[in-house]
């Protein structure tokens, strides 16, 4: 098991007006892995994420960073937010500058980097998200998908160790989602820990290393993706459905190691198909290569 970089211990948070958002919530974020915080809409996912970078302070319980309780002093908060980057769901809530380039430069300059270093960071962030052509564009002329990538670039330019994304695929088309996941995977390969909140069980199943199922302000269960998402009763209790890939595997009788992607499932079905057609005489389609 990888070391735990960021953790929530038994935290409570009540919004003014007595709306209980978090209730005895605990969560472990392991270094270098992809964690999906899975929960229905309005379950308090965003509230949880706002605790993970110190925007909100728990009324009970504590947040541990590198195993130590965090401080909410201004300097400590800045250091924390430099290491834990939070990307909001709505990019328009994050992009304040008229130009893409300027917006991305905001974080690095606040970290106290020189203009020269900041320029380099901006270039690298633009390259990481494959949005170099957007550098000189006006923020308000971008599409939602483009804005989203600029918002992520603005956080990546700060070189966070943990990247937290709130519903990263919301509002993106299929191609946009695929591109975003590629970019995020590249970040993880480079060593960044990824956390994303979503209500999309299929995305969590195909993409995350670990899942925390979240409902009514608590984490019901956290663990390995397949193990957690195979638990039907748990998902039902959290008002979620079983991922379609698992649904099919379970309908076919279950497997020790269920396929994690559509391709893997198809491969499995092809093998199955070739076995069952073994005795037939008509010519089979030539296998690839």
């Amino acid at each position, binding site marked *: 098991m990888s070391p735990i970089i960021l953790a929530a211990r038994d935290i409570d948070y009540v919004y003014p007006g007595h709306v209980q958002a978090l209730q005895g919530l605990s969560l472990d974020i392991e270094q270098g892995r992809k964690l999906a915080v899975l929960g229905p809409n309005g379950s308090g996912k965003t509230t949880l994420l*706002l605790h993970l*970078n110190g*925007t909100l302070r728990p009324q009970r319980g504590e947040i541990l960073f590198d195993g130590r309780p965090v401080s909410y002093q201004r300097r400590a908060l*800045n250091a924390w*937010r*430099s290491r834990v*980057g*939070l990307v*909001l769901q*709505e990019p*328009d*809530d*994050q*992009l*304040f*500058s*008229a*130009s893409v*380039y*300027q*917006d991305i*430069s*905001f*974080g690095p*300059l*606040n*970290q106290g980097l020189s*203009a020269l270093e*900041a*320029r380099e960071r*901006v270039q690298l962030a633009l390259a990481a998200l494959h949005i170099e052509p957007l550098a*000189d*564009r*006006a*923020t*308000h*002329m971008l599409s939602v998908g483009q804005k989203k990538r600029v918002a992520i670039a*603005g*956080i990546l330019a*700060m070189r966070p160790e943990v990247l937290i994304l709130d519903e990263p695929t919301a509002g993106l088309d299929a191609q946009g989602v695929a591109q975003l996941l590629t970019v995020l995977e590249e970040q993880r390969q480079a060593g960044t820990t990824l956390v994303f909140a979503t209500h999309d069980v299929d995305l969590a199943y195909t993409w995350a290393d670990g899942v925390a199922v979240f409902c009514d302000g608590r984490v019901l269960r956290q663990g390995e993706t397949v193990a957690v998402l195979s638990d039907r009763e748990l998902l039902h209790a959290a008002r979620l459905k079983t991922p379609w890939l698992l649904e099919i595997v379970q309908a076919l009788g279950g497997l020790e190691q269920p396929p994690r992607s559509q391709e893997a499932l198809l491969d499995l079905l092809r093998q199955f198909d070739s076995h069952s057609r073994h005795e037939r005489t008509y010519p089979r389609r030539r296998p690839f290569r």
Partner: protein
Amino acid sequence: MHLTDQHAWTNRWRQHHPAEKLLLAGGLLLCSVTLPPLTTGPVVLLVVWLATVAGAGIPAAALGRVMAVPGAFLLTSMPFLVLSVSSSEGIAFSSQGLETALRVMARSLAAIASMAFLTLTTPVIAWAPLLRRLGVPQPIVEIMLLIYRLIFVFAEQTVTTSQAQAARLGYDGIRRSLHSLGLLVASLLERSLARMRRLEIGLAARNFDGELRVLQPIYELSPWRIALIGSALLTVAAVGLLGNQLLAKVMT
């Protein structure tokens, strides 16, 4: 406004130093205001056309659109200059009035065109460092830029909300339209406040400490472009002055 802004961001001269554009526009404005209008005006218009359409690659239609609104005000005031009212003759057409009208027209159009060139070719981010250098305090520039950014967010919100209202027959008849409009304004206010709070969270996530520090674009002054602008301005002044003498000779 949206289209004008789009041209400012995408024209061929967007990377040119804003001071160069300010020099050209300011110089042309000065010429149009101080030199004889009947000859200077047309030359200024020609130079603006060359710079905006041929140089920066902005469609002539866009230039026309920017000039249309002030131009319309200008046209509506023309009759009052051409016609003279007196107790003896009543309302009468006067040739002197016509000349005055033409002068005013030429002068105003030239001045409007100079400014139109500037707004069409210079994006807002180019203004920020220039304003700072001119001594405008940083907070004012920041607020200006933030408002600029938010205008588009709210414009989008206004359009979608009013479309949603129209889809539910909210703008059928005056009474209902007024009611819907009131609701629209109220919802915009509420959403703006909520958005402001979320923006604060977003900025805080990037270590915002009260100052919106960003990298300023780097523009380079080009000596030959400045020389070109200088000679263009001199040409305008020369044609304006000499042409006026010629015109005076022809007229007498």
